[in-house]
């Protein structure tokens, strides 16, 4: 952990950095997302914030840009204490942010999304000040030009919600670069961009930098970071653990700092099972604008991994198999019978369970109790007299899951929001294991989960597979796939690009297949 008294790393402590944070802490209910982060950011430099999913990167950024308040600690901008002053103050102090969720206003036009904040800050307090349309257009044009988007009127006045995702991302970036900011923060800005767009973006960033702005870049793409160069700030579990020159560090080193262990650990998957009866057969599955002609099969007791970039179609494929995004064409057979993918409840009834990626929004009922979250999938089995759900059986079932999955909780009637991320994830997995599915689809099963929990989750997955359950893991965490799967599919641009046997595969080969160098 870094703290202000003992600055480490490559940069010397100048008198007053552009931005400084002092032991920031943040709690979300039961989650301790930041555990005392102290860092300094100088003008004209480039920073990469690196770290595993859920280690607190986005949280740190939100606090710096005033979108969230910290639980403890300070934020200083050019020596002034700006802690908890809110987004307007941060904007005024020259901090521009591209959030991970883009933070665009869907019902406003492109031009307004880019240029409005600037005028709002300038005329803050003067409600009826005229909106300077020509200036709005000018600054929007300038910004759009920089990121390489069209600048004609029709595009400027388009509603943002009608744009494709990649353009939206560029609009969000354009907004940040439009102003003469002292610090531009970008939270994973390249996830849905093509290589050309990324190159273009890097050019933009270099220009910003040469004009004296600091840039803080959050990314999982280490190669990209190395291309750009600059200071690497590595976070682990809510702490800043290392600072380095990013172009000199190897993937393995960074991986070690990020996880605190050697990347390639032993596989959890002990033996390749002998030929087992097939469970799932997918043929020629296509969904417009997502993926095409997907063929895959999973045998009973087999663990299949699917990976690829965020826009590779892997997410949509997972959703389709869960009944959440019906495919246009293709056939899916489960255990010899056609599987009706038109609605989630049908898929579930056939014995397919889906653990979604976004635990908080899509998976859990946060305010509800652990017991309710777990037993909701098996209410039919908990019925007793008069067909009513038996509370005692529900309690028993929840208690069993709690023990089986080693969930640490006060009791089964505590709200799920009071649990830590890893325990929350285990509640979610426990819900679907309780339903005893034939096929378990795990989408990012360990996103934002700490190392200890990860291990437990992996063991659970293995033991279920050993009992004959088919498992499909969709993830961008390559070590996780390498450690757990029998086979790994790499998707690229909506198609299956490669199929690997996981045994003996090394991460670099897999990584190049994913990013397509």
């Amino acid at each position, binding site marked *: 952990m870094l703290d202000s008294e003992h600055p480490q790393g490559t940069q010397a402590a100048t008198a007053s950095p552009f931005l400084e944070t002092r032991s920031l802490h943040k709690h979300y209910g039961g989650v301790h997302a930041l555990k005392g982060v102290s860092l300094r950011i100088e003008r004209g430099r480039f920073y990469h914030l690196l770290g595993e999913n859920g280690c607190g990167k986005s949280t740190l950024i939100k606090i710096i840009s005033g979108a969230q308040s910290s639980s403890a600690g300070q934020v200083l901008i050019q020596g002034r204490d700006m802690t908890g002053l809110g987004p307007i103050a941060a904007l005024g102090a020259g901090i521009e942010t591209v959030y991970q969720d883009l933070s665009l206003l869907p019902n406003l036009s492109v031009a307004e999304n880019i240029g409005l904040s600037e005028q709002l800050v300038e005329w803050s307090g003067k409600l009826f000040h005229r909106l300077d349309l020509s200036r709005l257009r000018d600054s929007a044009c300038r910004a759009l030009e920089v990121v390489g988007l069209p600048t004609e009127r029709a595009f400027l006045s388009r509603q943002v919600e009608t744009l494709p995702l990649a353009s939206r991302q560029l609009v969000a970036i354009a907004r940040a670069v439009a102003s003469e900011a002292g610090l531009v923060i970008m939270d994973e800005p390249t996830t849905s961009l093509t290589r050309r767009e990324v190159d273009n973006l890097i050019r933009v960033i270099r220009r910003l930098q040469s004009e004296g702005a600091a840039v803080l870049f959050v990314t999982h793409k280490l190669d990209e970071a190395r291309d750009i160069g600059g200071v690497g700030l590595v976070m682990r579990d809510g702490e800043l653990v290392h600072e380095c020159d990013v172009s000199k560090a190897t993937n393995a080193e960074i991986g070690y700092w990020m996880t605190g262990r050697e990347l390639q650990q032993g596989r959890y998957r002990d033996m390749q099972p002998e030929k087992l009866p097939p469970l799932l057969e997918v043929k020629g599955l296509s969904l417009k604008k997502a993926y095409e002609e997907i063929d895959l099969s999973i045998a009973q007791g087999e663990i299949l991994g699917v990976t690829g970039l965020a826009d590779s179609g892997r997410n949509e494929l997972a959703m389709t198999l869960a009944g*959440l995004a019906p495919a246009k064409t293709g056939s899916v057979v489960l255990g010899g019978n056609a599987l009706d993918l038109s609605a989630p409840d049908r898929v579930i009834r056939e014995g397919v369970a889906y653990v979604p990626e976004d635990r908080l929004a899509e998976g*859990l*009922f946060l305010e*509800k109790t652990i017991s309710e979250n777990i037993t909701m999938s098996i*209410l039919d089995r908990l019925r007793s007299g008069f067909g*009513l759900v038996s509370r005692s059986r529900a309690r028993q079932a929840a208690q069993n899951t709690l023990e089986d999955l080693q969930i640490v909780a006060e009791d089964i*009637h505590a*709200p799920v929001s009071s649990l830590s991320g890893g325990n929350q994830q285990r509640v979610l997995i426990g819900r679907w294991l309780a339903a005893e599915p034939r096929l378990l689809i795990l989408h990012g099963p360990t996103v934002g989960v700490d190392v200890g929990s990860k291990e437990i989750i992996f063991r659970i997955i293995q033991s279920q597979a050993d009992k004959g359950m088919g498992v499909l893991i969709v993830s961008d965490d390559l070590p996780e796939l390498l450690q757990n799967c029998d086979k790994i599919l790499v998707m690229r641009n909506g198609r299956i690009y490669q199929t690997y046997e996981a045994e003996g595969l090394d991460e670099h080969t897999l990584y190049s297949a994913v990013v397509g160098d």
Partner: protein
Amino acid sequence: MSSRQDFQLLFLVGINAAIIIAAMTLVGERFMTLYNFQSMGTQIPELGLLALGVMLAMISGRGGIDLSGIALANLSGVVAFMIAPMIIAPAVSPVGFLLSFSAIALGVGVIGGAINGMLIGYAGMTPIIVTLGTQLLFTGIAVGVTGGSALQLGYIPVIDDFGNMPLWGVPRTFGVFILIALALAVLLRYTRFGVHLFLMGSNATAARFAGMRVKSILFRTYLLAGVLASIAGIIIAARTSSVKWDYGTSYVLVAILIAVMAGVRPEGGYGRVTCVVLSAIALQLLSSFFNFMQISNFFRDCAWGLMLLLFLANTRVEWSDYVPAILRGRGE
């Protein structure tokens, strides 16, 4: 969060007790007569049923609300009144008439609730706009078919007894209300539909991902609210021996007030039948208390509005944070 709910229950019991004590000291024994309690008991069901409907809508989330309850109640009464005599004349068999009247009213409730449910569940419209529209539509149809006048049932002893007379000391309609509330409580607590409804109200996306048939649950929720409204319509008809399109125009607010006072969260996911029943009782006690105290009825409107805001504020404050740790059941 269950401690929060227990607190709400305790709070409502406390309010009821406080009003009764205030009435005992300020009004005296005239308030504490069996007759007065029976009289209050006959007045609770119609509002209580509508409040239960509002509660269901609110639990289901997505800004759920049912503004069409009393309109549907009146429409049920009106339609049943116009059709029932064609099936069995009240003079031939009063009981048969009451039964066919109720059956038709329930049918109208089912249809009305289904319209709300289809538009909200399957067409994906916002509950406010739907129930606003159906409120006008139901009222409008009731005005249209009656030409605006009241329809009189006349004095039919069976119906009047049902509406107004106690059985073993308890007003029959109140008994019906309690039975329905019990059934609803069981439905919400011990069936798949109920459990899923609460979960869906707290996170609709997660509900869809978990394979709940969100549209169908929404549909059934508003259908149920419609049925509750039509039962209220039957009770109103029995109690007043007549049906009219504009009966109880003030009930829209009062039903919402009862629900909010019962701790039902307008954002969805929370609500308890017991609390709604207690809250309806408290409001009736207070209302009668005001009448006994000869407090202006305009002031009562003012007080209702103020109370609505106060109880909204109350749900925003986590009171248990201010209760010393020792007094809390469980330590942290």
